[in-house]
C-alpha cells in the first residue's frame, strides 16, 4: 500500500509538472510550433528582452501586485487585530463577509465589481472608468481575505496577555503593536503578503472584467494573445517567472522552517524540565 501510494504520488507530481516541462522546452525551440521540435536556441530569451511590448505588461502586473498586496497587508493586518478584539457574534459576521470573495466564483466577483465600476462611471459621467484604479481596487479586494486568514491564526497562537503586558508596562496601543505584537505575528504577515502578491500577479479572471485598454496586465494580454497565434517568447517569459516564483517559494519555506524550529525549541525546553522532574 505504501509503495503504491509513493509511486502514485510521483505520477501525480509528473502530471502536475508536464505542462511546465512542455513550456520550458518550447522556450528553447527554434521553431514556432510548440508541438514540433526544430532545434535548441536561446533566441527567444533574447527576443523577450528586446521586445518593447511584453516587458511593460509584466511591469504593469508587478506594479499592481506590489501595491495591492502591500495595501491588503496593511489593511488586512489591522483588520485581523480588530477582528480578534470583537465579540464572538461580530467576529463571525465579519468572517462571513471575509469568506464571500473566497467562496464566490471568481467570475461573479469580477462581474459584480465590473458592474459597480460601470455604475459609478455612469453616475459620475466618466468615460472609460476601467483602468489602473479599478484594477487595483479589485486586486486589493480579493487579496484582503488571504492576508486576514494568514494573520488571524498567528494572532490566535499569541498569548493574549502579551498585549496587556505591553500596555501595563507603559506602551500606548500603537507602541504595543510595534514593540511586541508584530514580532509574534510577522511570519503570518509575510506569508499573507507573499500569497497576496502571487495571487495578484497571476490573476486573470477578475482582472479580465475590470481592466481598461490603457492599463493591461500580462495574464490579460496572454488571454488576448491566445486568440491569435502565440509568440514563443512568452514561453521564455513563463520559464523565467517559474524560476522567480520557485526562488520565492523556497525563501518562504526557509522562513517557515525557522519559525517552526523556534517554536519547537521553546517547547523542547519545557519537555526537558518536565522529564527531569519525573
Amino acid at each position: 500500500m505504501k509503495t503504491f501510494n509513493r509511486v502514485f504520488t510521483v505520477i501525480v507530481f509528473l502530471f502536475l509538472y508536464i505542462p511546465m516541462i512542455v513550456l520550458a522546452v518550447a522556450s528553447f525551440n527554434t521553431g514556432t510550433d510548440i508541438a514540433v521540435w526544430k532545434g535548441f536556441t536561446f533566441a527567444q530569451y533574447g527576443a523577450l528582452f528586446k521586445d518593447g511590448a511584453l516587458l511593460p505588461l509584466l511591469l504593469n502586473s508587478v506594479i499592481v501586485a506590489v501595491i495591492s498586496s502591500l495595501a491588503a497587508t496593511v489593511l488586512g493586518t489591522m483588520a485581523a487585530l480588530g477582528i480578534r478584539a470583537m465579540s464572538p457574534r461580530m467576529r463571525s459576521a465579519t468572517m462571513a463577509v471575509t469568506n464571500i470573495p473566497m467562496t464566490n466564483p471568481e467570475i461573479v466577483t469580477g462581474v459584480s465589481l465590473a458592474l459597480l465600476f460601470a455604475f459609478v462611471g455612469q453616475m459620475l459621467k466618466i468615460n472609460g472608468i476601467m483602468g489602473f484604479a479599478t484594477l487595483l481596487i479589485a486586486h486589493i479586494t480579493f487579496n484582503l481575505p488571504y492576508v486576514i486568514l494568514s494573520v488571524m491564526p498567528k494572532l490566535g497562537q499569541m498569548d493574549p496577555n502579551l498585549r496587556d503586558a505591553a500596555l501595563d508596562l507603559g506602551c500606548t496601543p500603537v507602541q504595543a503593536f510595534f514593540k511586541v505584537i508584530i514580532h509574534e505575528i510577522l511570519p503570518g504577515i509575510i506569508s499573507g503578503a507573499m500569497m497576496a502578491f502571487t495571487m495578484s500577479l497571476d490573476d486573470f479572471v477578475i482582472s479580465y472584467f475590470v481592466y481598461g485598454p490603457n492599463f493591461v496586465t500580462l495574464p490579460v494580454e496572454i488571454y488576448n494573445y491566445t486568440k491569435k497565434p502565440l509568440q514563443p517568447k512568452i514561453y521564455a517569459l513563463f520559464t523565467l517567472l517559474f524560476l522567480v516564483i520557485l526562488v520565492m517559494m523556497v525563501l518562504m519555506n526557509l522562513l517557515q522552517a525557522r519559525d517552526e524550529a523556534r517554536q519547537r525549541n521553546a517547547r523542547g525546553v519545557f519537555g526537558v524540565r518536565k522529564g527531569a522532574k519525573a
Partner: protein
Amino acid sequence: MSKELIRLVDCTMAFDGETVLNSINLTINNKEFLTLLGPSGCGKTTTLRIIGGFLKPTSGDVLFDGARINDLPPYKRQVNTVFQKYALFPHLDVYENIAFGLRLQKLPEQEIDERVTEMLEVVSLKGFEDRKVTALSGGQQQRVAIARALVNRPKVLLLDEPLGALDLRLRKDMQQELKRIQQQMGITFIYVTHDQEEALAMSDTVVVMNEGLIQQIGTPEDIYNEPVNAFVADFIGESNILDGIMREDFVVETFGRRFQCLDKGFQKDEPVDVVVRPEDIDIVPVKDGMLTGTVTSITFKGMQYDVIVDFKGFKWLIQTTDSPKVGERIGIKIDPDGFQIMHKSKYSGLYGDYSSFSEEYEELSDAEYDPENGEEGETREASDGE
C-alpha cells in the same frame, strides 16, 4: 498601614448582557496583601482586570487615591501586573524584558541598568541577564515576570494566578518568596487565586467571591473560623454543614439534640446552617458520645485519618489521629467553639454530606487543575501534582 488606596464602588461588569460582576464594593488599603479567592468564573480575574485598566466597568467607579480612574488606560496607571503564564516577551532576553517599562519611560541607560540589576537581585536571578526567556524554567519565568512589573516601582502589584502553572513544591517556595518581596518593597499586592490554602497562607485580607458577588471579606482566620454562609464554609477547608435550629442564644439544636455553642443574636427558633470542621470533632467511646454513629470508611492521609461516619444516614467527615475500624460504632464529642452558626442563604443545602466523599475529595485535592476554562479564560496546565 490602613490608608485607603483603591476603592471599587458598585462595580458591575457585563459581557454581551451576561453579568460577570454584580455591584462590587471593595476597599483596598496601602501596603496590604489582599487576595481575591473563588472558583473559576466567580469574577475575580474580571475584578483584577478592572483595577489594571484592561476592562472598563459597565457601571460603577474605580477610585485610586480618591481620584476616579475608570477611563485611565493601563499605561497611565501606577499599577503593574504579573500575568497568568507570565506573558513574557519571547523576542527579548531576560534583561530587556525587565528593562521594557523603563525604556518606555526613556530613562538614562545608567539608571535602567542599576534598577534592572537591583531587581534581578531581588528575584534571585543574577547572571541570567542574557538568557532567552523561552529557555527558562517555569519558576524562573515567574521571577522575570515579577521583576518586570516591580522594576517600574508601581504602588500596586496585581498578580493573576501567578503560581498556577508551577508544580506543588515550587509553588510553596514561591508563596514564601512573594510574601518576602511584598514586605521588602512595601507595596500593595492584589492576588487572584482559586487555591484556598494559598490565600490563607499569604494574605492580610481575603475576599471570597462567587457568581460575581463578594461573599465575605476578612482576615484568613475570620474566613476560616467564621464563614458567613455555606458557600464560604464549603469552599474554604473541609466542613460538615448541618441543618439546625437556633433555640436560644448559645444553644443550637441539630440531629434532635441540643448543643452548646458560642453564637448569639439569632431569632428564637431560627433555622440555621451549622458548620463543624472535621478537626473539631473528637472520637470517644459510645457511652460518652454526644452522638453515636457507624464508621463507613477510613483513609490514611499521613498526618491524620479521614474517617467517614454515618449518623442517621448523614455522613460526616472527621479528621483524627485515632484509627477506628470500618463498621465500628463510635461516639463523638464537639466543644462549644467547634460550632459555627450561619444564617440560611441561597447556598444552604447545596453542599450535602460526605456520602460521595471519595469523588469529591479527588476534585478538591486536584483543585489546581481546572478543566472548565470559564469566561475568564483561566487556562492553565495541569500541574503534575505529586
